[in-house]
């Protein structure tokens, strides 16, 4: 059995560094791999230089050795895990859109949110397509989640432009959209509960579920809070007064202490 000496190991170590393998951990992996491969070919009777070339060929074929590091970085940084978390990023962005509005004066109903959300929608689609070569619409959940912002924007516009859409109220819209989000994610939630999961996996799934729901109502709530403070855009006083007569369930809810607290500002 032939083993590499210290000088040969140092040569390989220096060579892979020159070839672009510098990532901590990966350099140890590649060095060990090439040493094992070279020793294998040495034991078949090849001289060191040839054995090393054969081991390099086994590792990457015709591609440069540096491609291993590029592939590793790509896999770790922009792999599936990035897209898994993208929903959370977009939900945060939805909130930021509302915060951004603090510095803007809204003089016309519902223009800023639709424009920004549609811009985000377009940026996301382009980014996803050029990054993966796939249409995000091929994944129903992503499509629904990312389409939610423009949907919310349309809801804002309708509620402001047409009084007939105002009867739900801000909280009502938020609850409805959260319910829609929950409904959209129902199958996933059922699947999560049916399978054995660790606490970490459950928390990740839960955060994704909350991401979908919050994505639907955060922009709406932020918009009303920041652009229309106290303006009763979604529920004019007259409509609020008329609600209990039209909806006995709402009257019942108002009697409950928790519901009174919830609807305190509205009724």
């Amino acid at each position: 059995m032939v083993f590499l000496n210290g000088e040969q190991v140092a040569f390989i170590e220096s060579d892979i560094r020159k070839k672009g393998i510098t990532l901590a951990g990966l350099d140890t992996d590649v060095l060990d791999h090439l040493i094992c491969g070279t020793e294998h070919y040495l034991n078949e009777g090849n001289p060191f230089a040839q054995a090393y070339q054969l081991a390099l060929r086994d590792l990457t074929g015709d591609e440069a050795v540096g491609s291993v590091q590029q592939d590793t970085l790509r896999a770790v940084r922009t792999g599936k895990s990035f897209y898994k978390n993208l929903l959370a990023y977009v939900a945060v962005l939805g909130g930021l859109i509302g915060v951004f509005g603090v510095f803007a004066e809204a003089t016309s109903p519902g223009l800023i949110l639709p424009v920004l959300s549609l811009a985000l929608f377009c940026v996301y689609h382009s980014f996803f397509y050029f990054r993966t070569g796939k249409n995000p619409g091929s994944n129903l959940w992503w499509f629904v989640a990312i389409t939610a912002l423009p949907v919310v924007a349309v809801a804002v516009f309708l509620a402001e432009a047409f009084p007939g859409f105002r009867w739900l109220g801000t909280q009502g819209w938020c609850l409805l959209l959260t319910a829609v989000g929950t409904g959209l994610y129902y199958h996933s939630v059922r699947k999560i509960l049916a399978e054995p999961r660790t606490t970490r996996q459950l928390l990740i799934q839960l955060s994704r579920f909350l991401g979908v729901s919050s994505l639907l109502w955060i922009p709406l709530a932020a918009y009303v809070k920041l652009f229309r403070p106290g303006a009763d855009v979604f529920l004019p006083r007259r409509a609020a007064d008329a609600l209990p007569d039209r909806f006995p369930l709402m009257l019942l809810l108002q009697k409950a202490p928790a519901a009174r607290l919830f609807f305190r500002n509205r009724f």
Partner: protein
Amino acid sequence: MYSKDLIRGTLTPIILRLLHPDGKMYGYEICQKVKQLTDGSLLIREGSLYPALHRLMDDGLIRVEEVMIGNRPRRYYQLTEEGRLEAEKRTAEFSQFLQTMQLFMQKAIR
């Protein structure tokens, strides 16, 4: 030797299966094991093994332990608790997929 299209997507289940339940292997060993178990008919591209291993590590499914071999370290990979659950799931899913494909091929021939 199988085509790249067939092998693509099987690397992660292969790694998880080899490390399941208490296996501890280093990269070169994984490659050799695959060759040995498949009589050389399944040759994974060795350069694609490390991105897959690092990705699994990033996902928290495997962890690494460095052991000194003479004067240099060697990185052994093994499953985490989460990785064990995932390995069971993927193995079951893969077996089911193979059965489905076999059934499909049989029915398609008739």
